[in-house]
């Protein structure tokens, strides 16, 4: 068998940690090869080595059988290796074309020949079905479109081997479908692909082989046809993992959250929540399903007071909280696991211990008459860290140096510990591995079982279907349907989310 890429016994160290310890990965011509591993297992590092961003301490790389030395991305490009990074590498203020040609600009005289570039780009995008508007600015296009630009960047450079680092984590179900289609076209055109993803279902659907790494060590490569999701998960984590979250039926009680006729404009002053109604009872988890950009973020920010609503009413336990200050809303009994943990959830340059009192630092016993008690703060932090299994060298470690999963656990610990009547969880498992996801789901259900209301926002239909007791479908700023997870399918949800009126178990205006 011909391998296009062979990474043999790769070792890469960072100060104090071995990110890749003797890992081998072999990619065949024309296959989609999955790279699977927990958060921080070393997947991105391995791919960055292949792409020339890092130099390995040990091991060798062969491209089409020939030993190569990839000391910078230019060499990778020349060898036909292209990478679509986990975090997009796009210049927001540039146009699609400018982003794609950057570094390889066609010239006429001294100037960049934009016309020629645009022509070339539309040729490629036609060939692979990658629809883009070459003259649009990156900041104006959707995430899915941005990802297509990333792919085009590699193709424009004539990449034969494409690396996708967690490409689906940021996409809506529709966009994921399109992406999978694109990958299949690429393979048909003779390209080879390495795909990093935490979503076992995707691996089963599109991949040929899977290489599993755990804590920096290679566990081995298996053929997809010889395996199943449970097996993969246990390979990755090193123990058995359950997928279907166990839970007893919900027993909803009185209404905790009541949203009526809510109108919210987004930061660009465009109405995005347009007369939304919603009821949430104690002792239930309400999942909100919807394609990104239909007003779900603004809904949550309006409930938590982070964004001003134009009109309507939000009642918590019967008390109006519309447009109150965030602090007042928390004090009224709301917990909030924010969508973007780095942006909103943590002060990365504070110790993790101080992050745990981020909303409570001014209250007793953490502070008394305006003077902080570090003793009480850190005692509390230690408790949360132990209880929620936050893996950190100490409570004095800066939040920045924790891995994403552990940062998220700390946030969840903080929010759950406040014992809020309403817990809002926005994408609580985004980018996390299966082990961490399982842990977080259990915690959300525990909350419900203790008689609290949980509002879950997620773009992962699996998660919505698994965890929620009821599902509200949001479309263009309104709840268009309420469905029972036990009586619906992904197909039906997908249709509702796309705006087609479904059968729906609740009325559409009052939920």
């Amino acid at each position, binding site marked *: 068998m011909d391998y296009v890429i062979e990474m043999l016994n790769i070792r890469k160290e960072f100060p104090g940690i071995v990110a890749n310890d003797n890992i081998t990965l072999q990619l065949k011509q024309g296959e989609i090869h999955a790279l699977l591993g927990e958060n921080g297992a070393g997947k991105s590092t391995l791919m960055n080595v292949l792409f020339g961003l890092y130099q390995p301490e040990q091991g060798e790389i062969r491209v089409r059988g020939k030993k190569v030395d990839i000391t910078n991305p230019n060499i990778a490009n020349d060898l036909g290796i292209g990478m679509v990074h986990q975090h997009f590498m796009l*210049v927001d203020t540039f146009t699609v074309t400018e982003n794609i040609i950057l570094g390889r600009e066609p010239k006429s005289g001294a100037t960049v020949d934009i016309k020629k570039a645009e022509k070339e780009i539309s040729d490629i995008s036609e060939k692979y079905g990658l629809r883009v508007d070459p003259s649009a600015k990156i900041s104006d296009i959707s995430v899915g479109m941005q990802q297509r630009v990333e792919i085009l960047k590699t193709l424009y450079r004539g990449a034969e081997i494409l690396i996708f680092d967690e490409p689906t984590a940021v996409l809506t179900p529709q966009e994921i479908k399109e992406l999978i289609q694109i990958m299949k076209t690429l393979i048909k055109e003779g390209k080879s692909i390495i795909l990093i993803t935490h979503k076992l279902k995707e691996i089963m659907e599109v991949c040929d082989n899977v290489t599993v790494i755990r804590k920096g060590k290679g566990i081995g490569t298996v053929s997809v046809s010889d395996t199943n999701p449970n097996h993969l998960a246990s390979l990755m984590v090193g123990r058995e993992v359950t997928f279907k979250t166990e839970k007893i039926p919900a027993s909803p009680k009185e209404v905790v959250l009541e949203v009526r006729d809510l109108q919210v404009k987004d930061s660009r002053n465009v109405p995005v929540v347009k007369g939304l109604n919603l009821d949430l009872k104690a002792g239930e988890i309400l999942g909100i399903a919807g394609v990104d950009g239909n007003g779900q973020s603004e809904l949550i920010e309006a409930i938590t007071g982070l964004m001003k609503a134009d009109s309507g009413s939000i009642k918590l336990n019967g008390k109006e909280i519309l447009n109150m200050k965030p602090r007042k809303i928390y004090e009224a009994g709301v917990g909030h696991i924010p969508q973007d943990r780095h942006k909103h959830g943590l002060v990365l340059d504070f110790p993790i211990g101080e992050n745990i009192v981020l909303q409570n630092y001014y209250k007793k016993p953490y502070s008394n008459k305006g003077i902080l008690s570090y003793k009480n703060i850190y005692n509390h932090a230690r408790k949360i860290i132990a209880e929620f299994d936050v893996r950190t060298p100490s409570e004095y470690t800066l939040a920045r140096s924790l891995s994403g999963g552990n940062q998220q656990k700390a946030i969840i610990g903080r929010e759950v510990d406040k014992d809020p009547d309403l817990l809002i969880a926005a994408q609580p498992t985004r980018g996390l591995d299966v082990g961490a996801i399982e842990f977080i789901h259990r915690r959300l259900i525990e909350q419900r079982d203790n008689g609290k209301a949980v509002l879950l926002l997620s773009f992962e239909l699996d998660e919505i279907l698994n965890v929620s007791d009821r599902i509200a479908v949001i479309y263009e700023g309104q709840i268009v349907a309420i469905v029972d997870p036990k009586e619906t399918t992904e197909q039906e949800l997908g249709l509702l989310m796309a705006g087609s009126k479904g059968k729906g178990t609740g009325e559409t205006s009052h939920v």
Partner: protein
Amino acid sequence: MGFIDILTILIPSTLLWASPLIFTSLGGAFSERSGVVNIGLEGLMVIGAFSSIVFNLAFADTFGAATPWVSLLVGMLAGALISILHAVASISFRADQTVSGVAINLLAVGLTLFLVKRIYGKGQTDIISEGFSKIDVPVLHKIPVIGDIFFSNTYWPPFVAIIAAFLVWFIMFKTPFGLRLRSVGEHPMAADTMGINVTRMRYIGVILSGAFAGIGGGVYAQSISSDFSHATISGQGFMALAALIFGKWHPLGAMGAAIFFGFAQSLSIIGSSLPLFENIPSVYLLIAPYVLTILALTGFIGRADAPKALGTPYIKGSR
């Protein structure tokens, strides 16, 4: 004084004041567009002023009328040379860019005065004999009215500065080099993955800023102060930086802002004898440019977007 007469005084003076600011803020554009804050423009102007004056004094006999131009080149080289310090500290050594810029400012003043005392044995240089002097722009000054206002009794550097602004605009927005420079200032890691050498681009940006600020200082010293002392450059670099921000990091915007500052400055001096202004206490005219800048930043260009990566050192592999 008639209105036209007023303009014939005001405009050449405006342009003269503006030209060092234009050059320097163009330099700032190179540095900041590449992602490196350059608050050291002031110091780099000091270096440019010092070296062009010293060269001018020493070689006026050799170069004759071409002396100020040759001296400008010397100022440009010296500015570029000193700016390497800023580049090394803030790009390679990951120093806080603002702090490194402040250090450049202190160093420039200390070093040049030290050298002046060492070379001349006193606190300031002699006055140069071959500075930029008044000219009528050939042909153009013959245009009625316009020619009198814009092209008579004026100096060459303002016109060179304006041409330079257009040139920089062209380089920055039309050439591959410009695209790469800006990409490094917006998203260095993206640029890196596209095979662009971020460090090199930033060094080029900073060194160009030194070169332009050196020219700015040289222009100031040779067309306005005529000698070099501790007071020669006192705040012009900061004004150039303000012009850059005022102009939204755009070469032509910076030029416009610099001309505006020059205008406000001239007005504050000349204004006292204009009928419209003579009753206004001079302090209002003196603070006008600064107040106007603040108002402008607050009002209609409050959302000027700095290059996204401005101020952050690029560390390979960090997110």
